[in-house]
């Protein structure tokens, strides 16, 4: 007995201990036809307003979410008597040119779909977001953590939401100036692009509240993390943060939306529940309408981070030049997928097999954004 006891002990000591695990889950197919209207957008003061109309889809549907086309979308105000239609500029995207909102008035959204179903929001107050005080970041083992700090001296805002757009520059290490065409090395015109930019929008609901604080201060609210060694910081990174002021109801609505879709999977999950927004169907009071309409001035701020500020970053692009003598051109450039980069005076051509090394447009767009510094 003692012998197998020892064996058992050994095997147990080597076994792992804290074992909770997560597997993909395929839910049972829910047949219910769901095709509810989703309304997203903020009536912006002094800036163009974009309202997006889409439809919900079934969970199993793989197609992109379908836009709601050809609807009549209008902004109405309570006491000024305005009734402004929005123009559909793309499928399901309705735009209103810049409009100065009257902070003492209230506005609402009025939608009539092409199927003649009408939706109306509550009148909402114009919420003016205070300016962003600062965007800052810290470097940790996880990467670059970005924060927003703001305050409202009037102690009036209390509920905030942020969206951001990340843009980053990516540079190829080499530029290909020659090409291999019909057994000949010729000049490449134009040469391959080496400066490209990529961008990305926030995907999670970023909410903050100072309701429990004495002053209306948001201090270092985490926005996002640029993971360590990410290509976003291979050269230069920029983030534009938009700050929205919310009403308490809007904040609660978004917070529940965030819980339902972003905060599940812990041991003690909240009970999922849908909160009604402030947009209602006029034809069927029980029809769920997704979205919360709000109006106000949006504040924006942009910062840049250079790669040299975060060293050591750990991003590495391996580009080893292959030296090709003329007798091997056909083998390398014709058959092996190596691209010629430049030719030296002796006629030897140096090539690269990783396109990222000489053509940044394989990963990003070679067009410099207007704002780029």
């Amino acid at each position, binding site marked *: 007995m003692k012998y197998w006891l020892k064996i058992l002990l050994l095997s147990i000591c080597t076994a792992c201990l804290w*074992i909770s695990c997560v597997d993909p889950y395929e839910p049972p197919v829910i047949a219910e036809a769901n095709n509810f209207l989703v309304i997203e957008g903020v009536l912006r003061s002094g800036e163009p307003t974009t309202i997006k109309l889409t439809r919900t889809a079934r969970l199993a549907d793989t197609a992109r979410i379908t836009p709601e086309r050809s609807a009549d979308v209008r902004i109405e105000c309570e006491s000024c008597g305005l009734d402004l239609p929005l123009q559909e500029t793309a499928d399901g995207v309705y735009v209103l040119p810049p409009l100065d909102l009257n902070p003492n008035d209230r506005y609402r959204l009025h939608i009539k779909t092409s199927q003649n179903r009408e939706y109306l929001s509550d009148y909402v107050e114009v919420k003016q977001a205070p300016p962003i005080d600062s965007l800052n970041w810290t470097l940790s083992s996880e990467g670059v953590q970005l924060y927003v700090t703001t305050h409202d001296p009037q102690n009036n805002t209390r509920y905030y939401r942020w969206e951001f757009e990340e843009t980053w520059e990516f540079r190829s290490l080499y530029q290909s100036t020659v090409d291999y065409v019909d057994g000949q090395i010729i000049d490449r015109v134009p040469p391959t692009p080496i400066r490209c930019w990529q961008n990305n929008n926030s995907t999670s609901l970023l909410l903050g509240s100072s309701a429990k604080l004495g002053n209306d201060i948001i201090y270092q609210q985490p926005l996002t993390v640029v993971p360590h060694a990410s290509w976003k910081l291979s050269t230069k990174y920029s983030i534009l943060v938009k700050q929205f002021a919310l009403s308490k109801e809007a904040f609660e609505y978004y917070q529940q939306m965030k819980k339902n879709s972003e905060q*599940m999977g812990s041991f003690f999950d909240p009970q999922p529940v849908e909160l009604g927004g402030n947009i209602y169907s006029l034809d069927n009071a029980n029809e769920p309408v997704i979205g919360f309409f709000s109006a106000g001035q949006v504040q924006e701020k942009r910062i840049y981070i250079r790669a040299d500020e975060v060293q050591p970053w750990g991003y590495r692009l391996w580009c080893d030049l292959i030296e090709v003598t003329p007798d091997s051109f056909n083998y390398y450039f014709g058959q092996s997928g190596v691209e010629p980069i430049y030719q030296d005076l002796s006629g030897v051509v140096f090539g690269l097999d990783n396109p990222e090394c000489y053509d940044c447009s394989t990963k990003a767009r070679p067009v410099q954004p207007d704002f780029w510094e």
Partner: protein
Amino acid sequence: MKHFIQFFLLFLGFSFLSLPAAAQSVQPPVISASFNSLSFEQFVQELETKSGYRFYYNPQHTDSLSISGNYTNKPLAAVLEQALQGSGLEYAVDAETKNIYITKGQKIITSLPAGFFRKEEEKVSPQQEKEFVVDYYNGNGNRSWVKKDKIYEIGKKTQTIVPGNATITGQIRSAQTGEQVIGATVLIEDPFTGAATDAFGNFTLRIPKGRHTLKVRSVGMVSEELQIVLYSDGKLDIELFENVAQLKAVEISADRDVNVSQAQMGMEKINIRAIRQVPSVMGEPDVLRVVLTLPGVKTTGEASTGFNVRGGSVDQNLILFNDATVYNPSHLFGFFSAFNSDLLDGVELFKSSIPAQYGGRLSSVLKITPRYGNKKKIEGKAGIGLLTSRATIEGPIIKDKTSFILGGRTTYSNWLLKLLDNEEYQNSKASFYDVNLNLTHEINERSNLYFTGYFSKDQFKLRTDTLYGYDNKNATLKWKKIFSDKLLADFTGSYSQYSFGVSSESNPVNAYKLAFNINQLNAQAAFNYSLNQSHTLNFGLTSVYYKLRPGSFLPIGEGSEVVPDVLESERALESALYLEDQYDISKRFAVTLGLRYSLFNYLGPKSVITYADGLPRSETNMLDTLSYGSGDLIKTYHGPEYRLSARYMFTPSFSVKGGYNTLRQYIHMLSNTTAVSPTDIWKLSDPNIRPQFGEQFSLGFYKNFRNGVIETSVEGYYKNMQDYLDYKGGAELVMNHAIEAEVINTEGKAYGAEFMIKKLSGKLNGWLSYTYSRTLLRMDDPNAGELINNGDWYPANYDKPHDFTLIGNYKFSHRFSVSLNCTYSSGRPITLPIAKYWYAGSERVLYAERNANRIPDYFRTDLAINIEGNHYLKQLTHNSWTIGVYNLTGRRNVYSAYFIAEAGAIKGYRLSIFGSAIPFINYNIRF
């Protein structure tokens, strides 16, 4: 002794008394026979022919017997003795009338006890009374079966004994621990007279004076036979040795047939030895895990605080540790129970007939009985496991009078998490510890004092920088007093505190500390009065004073901008008077009639918001805020609670029971998570929140086979719950100044049938149970506004219709046993999304009906091997090992299925808490 009786009887001249001792002249015959698997009937026929005696017996008691054996020239009594061994049957031979009576349980006494006619005889012939010399040394030498040669002399020693009866009183204790032995029997066989010990191990036995063999028996103890000479009234304290080689075990109850014969239904009693044998996570013996295997007890999942009994919510269980309320019985997300098994004696769960003594919760009472220290010598125990370790020390403070036991338990999982090569876990912390101190003092043999103190603390910090912590504090002082043979009383005072806190300091501006606590002072007097043979009364009163601090939100550090916010304290007094009569109408028919009247006073100082009548309780419908001063009665609720049950015994092994119970609950837990978390708040009933009311009808059939070795039962129940509290969608329950506006009254109904087969003794023991049950809830508050699932019935989070459990233990030898635990249950309900949509840069999910779907079914098998060291009584340490595997099949049982947006797209996941087989080992040492 026989001489003495003979002499006595002859002297009295009552020759018509057919005492077996007197009937030596009519010797029963000797038998030579060979039986091979005879039925009892055939056996009796054979014996009747051979002996000329006539048998009287109840065929229902004997139909399952099978008799084998060879006998040559054996006395009839010896044959019967051997044939009936282990059957639970008793025989009585009346040589005078040549009759043999076979009975179950109690032996028929074929004679009147000696001294029965003493009064008359004294009157008739006082002058004939004669003293005689006691010669107890006579024949002593040739009684080789006498284990101990010692002869105990009781009373004032005289050279001669005056015939008549005398009383022996005394106490029976364990020789090892000094613990009083309850329910032990003390008897002499000639004449057959016996007594059982009371709650303090005391007995009183009145028997004829003279020389006797006193037999002392108790479950789990080595039986003793003492030679006594009784001169006059006197005292005899007896010490019994524990049956050391007791690996026996899944013993749900010490008393056979008690499940059939007790009037109560829906009650389960498990002793600590049984608990130790059920395999558990990490090999740590766990009371709550074992309770979860009982029919009718369920949980939302592995990581969930508490348990659900017969469709009740977690807060509807009254968990009592030596009569002090425990608010959170779990450690480490519910993986471990908060009780250290080394300091427990056992648990009792009442899920159907709840004794009138208890109240205040709708579903069940879980009574956890502590163990007290050894009164003889210092002893220690330690257990080492992979995740937890525990140590206990116990011993006398005053020998045989006062003892202590101190135990502690802790985990080193914090250290373990750090070892894992994963940043997320390395930044996590989870730890707990608990400490128990139990004291007992014997004031005198009719009065004892008990003290239990308990403290437990948990802390965890997972992924985020937020630190969670909670603790339980309990203290109880109990005075047990026997006023007379008929009246027994318990006076208990206890204090309980539960508190939790959440704090975060990473952001200096938002640094906060959130705290909640609940304090409870409890006083009760409980009396037990045996009116006569057929009436036993339990009555008493209890009072609980609650003080809740429903929340404080305070800044930490100088830079914090957090505005201190403290919710007003809540106070209340809950009192109850109760009377319960256990009435045996006939031998077959018994009823328990209980009435409890409970009274709840919500007390000031407090401000209470009033709302417009008939409108939803919301901010817009607030009318006024009323301020009450200290001690003001703000609101009173009261009402009767009925606790009725009845039993009809068709045969000693078959009975039918029925019960009706009503209960009221004045304290509620509010939880907005699917699994109950340790940071859920409690709320007292107030002018806006009515108490919960519950009623339960139950019916059960109980049948035992093989003399109670196998117990079977079927119990069905139907339950109604009113004013159970649910909350509005998205409600913020913590730090809410108008929480009544966030809760909605819900009604619930639960019904089910529980089937159980138990085998209590033998090499193979354990139980098998199957439960079908449903629990449905419905929001029925007309003023609620938006209702969950449009006000239709929906299944509760813990509604698992099918539930199958097998607990088995096979004892290969006294030192080696194997335990197996198999559980299957339906998956719990979950709310699945019905659609997805695009919003704020990501796909998101839309939920609709609550709990319309279920997660996959749950199945788990655990195996444990218990190895005891050698059983030499005298050695420095005793060792034992428990080795096993939790979740042997490695099945990834789904704890929750959820959908989460990742990089803009929705993905579905299932979370399994124990995703593989988990081996464990535990080493226990006792010194």
